[in-house]
């Protein structure tokens, strides 16, 4: 009884109350901003989980064969840029914010070293894939090789973990895309008949650079989907979507 006197009892009670209050206030401290605690799955290249698409670096170049330099469209940038922005936001929605595109448009038209016929060859069918590969090779040397005449540190530079895409806006015919590069004729941005869905076409070829295949039967060319990789590429981008069949091969 001697040691258990009243002031001691009070002090112990006060201490318990203070400790309780501290614990209570800590427990009730909430972060101001909600954070998602479940990590998002990574988006990756079609059927290849080793190539992350979390960040995509998109470089856009207006390319003119040497013999067509007279027909350079002076307002090319104004024609392209809205479509690039649409592409960016469409992509963001389709991939739930999990894949982000940073784009850069090379400020000047690039005159090719060769003439149109050298890029196009005799066959411009099926989207002119020959021009795509020829021009891509040339741009690789001129832009991304330090010895190239267009080598500029900043434009060539991409973060090592970024997925890099070169998009050629071609003063010629063609619409095609392969891993890492795509080509689309500038005429799609000019002719009124494509005005309802040029953005869809623009994205469609971009989708190919990420490995997404066309959604048609190889033999009959009959569409198996009406999404943007199928018949949807000729519908307005506002109505377009990427089918889950495709997305589930990309980390969904």
């Amino acid at each position, binding site marked *: 009884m001697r040691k258990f006197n009243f002031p001691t009892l009070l002090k112990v009670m006060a201490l318990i109350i203070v400790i309780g209050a501290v614990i209570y206030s800590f427990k009730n401290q909430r972060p101001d901003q909600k954070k998602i605690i479940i990590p998002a799955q990574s988006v990756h290249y079609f059927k290849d989980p080793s190539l992350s698409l979390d960040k995509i670096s998109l470089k856009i170049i207006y390319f003119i064969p040497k013999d067509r330099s007279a027909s350079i469209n002076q307002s090319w940038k104004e024609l392209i840029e809205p479509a690039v922005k649409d592409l960016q936001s469409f992509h963001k929605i389709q991939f739930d914010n999990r894949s982000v595109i940073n784009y850069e448009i090379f400020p000047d038209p690039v005159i090719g070293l060769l003439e149109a016929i050298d890029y196009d060859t005799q066959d411009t069918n099926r989207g002119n894939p020959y021009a795509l590969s020829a021009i891509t090779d040339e741009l690789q040397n001129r832009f991304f090789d330090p010895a190239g005449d267009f080598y500029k540190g900043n434009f060539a530079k991409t973060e090592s973990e970024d997925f890099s895409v070169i998009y050629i806006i071609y003063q010629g015919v063609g619409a095609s895309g392969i891993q890492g590069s795509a080509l689309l004729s500038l005429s799609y941005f000019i002719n009124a008949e494509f005005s309802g869905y040029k953005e869809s076409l623009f994205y469609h070829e971009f989708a190919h650079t990420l490995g997404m295949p066309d959604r048609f039967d190889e033999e009959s060319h009959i569409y198996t989907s009406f999404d943007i990789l199928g018949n949807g590429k*000729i519908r307005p981008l506002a109505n377009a979507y990427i089918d889950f069949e495709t997305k589930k091969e990309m980390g969904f």
Partner: protein
Amino acid sequence: MTSILKEINEYFFGQSRFRLKLTVFLMAVALVPLLLLGVVSIYAININRRFEVAALETQLTNQKIKQIESFLNDIIEALRFKVASQEPRISLGEQNFLLSNLMNAFPSLEEVSFVAVLPENNYGKETFRISRDKLFSCGVIKDAEGEKLENCLSWSPDNLDDPQSLRNFQLAKEFLAAKVGKDYIGPMIKTSVGPRFIAAVPFKNEKDEIIGVIAAKIFLNPVVRLVEQSTLGLKGYVFVTDKDGSVIASSAPLFKALGYQLKKIDIVSSVLFGAKRTGLDSADAYANIFGDKVIGAGDIVKKTGWAVIAEWPEDDAFAPSLRLRNQIIYFSGALAAVIFLAATFAANRVVRPIKELVEGTKIIGEGKFDYKIDIKTKDELKDLGDSFNEMSKSLKKLAELREEFIFVAAHELRTPVTAIKGYLSMILEGTVGKISKKTAEFLKKIQASNDRLVQLVQDLLQVARSEAGRLKIALSPQKINESVFQVFDELRPLADDRNIIFEYSRPAKELVMADNDRLKEVLINLIGNAIKYNKNDGKIIVSHKVENNFLVTAIADTGIGFKPEEMPRLFEKFWRAENEATRAQTGTGLGLFIVKELVEKMGGKIWVESKWQIGATFYFSLPIAK
């Protein structure tokens, strides 16, 4: 100020076992049942609330499922019309009529197509299409009847990529399902203007032959709206995912922006697997994707395989019991404070008079019978105090009677013993004739005994006088050193007998206020004792010092001294130390008592310091005369 604080501190925190007991008891009686009741009722409320929460969530999800199903049913049932014809085909005009009516009736239809099934009618090909955007509406221009609709191009493999052409559905999932008689409801499609889905149903004629497929693209905006409008408490929300776990709609703005794949979340995946979640299971209390603890419930939309999940953060869902818990905590705290104050007040009310009584009895026990115990509690404690006072009055009377008796007895004894003393002196001096040696020896023994008797009577008288207040003391400035020297002279023969020497280290120059005779009496008593209880060849040292206007006189001896336990009783009446040295000496046990009385009556104090076997020093102080 500090004394007030001290008093407050003493009042509230002073040591009192009674108050501690009372406080603990009251707390136990009042707080423990309250807290127990609180815990039990919170527990009960929580359980009850859990049922309510689960019921509300289930009710909400069921309602949403019903609404979603009725939305889907309405559209699917509308698509599933029959034509009153036995023909294997219907005309484009009819197709146009039917599809246009559909589009008019259902604003959530974005596009609807008629796809032919029978081989002879262009198997798998769209023959008519109406779109909200007129640019994409289309019908066949070349058919058997030669019908032609505006703004349309025919289907052909060559203009595959023409937006206004009719489409080939031969390999499309919706067509493949519906042409064999199944309803098709596709996954959620995400577009920039909101979610939608594709549905297809078989189109039959009166013979129940499937002659076509009605395929439609349907806005899910009505579903989004009806989910967004849901409410669940303040923080609860509901969300719908498609069968792949993509969020279609949610009433929580955070989820809307999220567009998140939720298949990996337990509740979503289990609901998608067809397990109903009731909100009552232990697994239905979990952390949501923001890490908040929630109670969740959910079920599946059977037609589409979508999951409808309701989640309710616990802090909101259990707000009523949290409120009650806080109220109980605040109330208990307040009650504890009140109990503490009340217990302090009550305990002090009881303890203070008891302390007063304890003090009073101590004082009365010391013989101060005039002391009055003053208790104002107006209850039994006051009665107790009063009877204590009565008792001390009686005790006082008794003491007075005893003193009176001693005084009278001593007074009456003094005359005969004085007479005996006189006659013995005369006999011993030979006034009444010669006496033998033997007789003289015996008479001397009688004389010694009589002297002791005389001394006793004198002492008794003095004590009685003092106690009766009849002791007369006349104070005047006195030279104390003269008194000391006189006493030395008077007692020297006694000292010389035992070879004890006096030392007077510092004869005082100061005059003290004293009664000369009484001062001498004090000195004779103290120095006499010093001789009596000294060793042979001992020493007695008398000295003075000045302390706060008092002259302190010290008489030190080299005798046996006192044991520590004897010191407090030295100045008591009739008390004598019990040891070899004192047994050898005669004494009444009144000497030091009388000395003390005299010193105190002269305005001084007396005290003693001693070490057993080494000696004792008596000090007394007297006021210095001005």
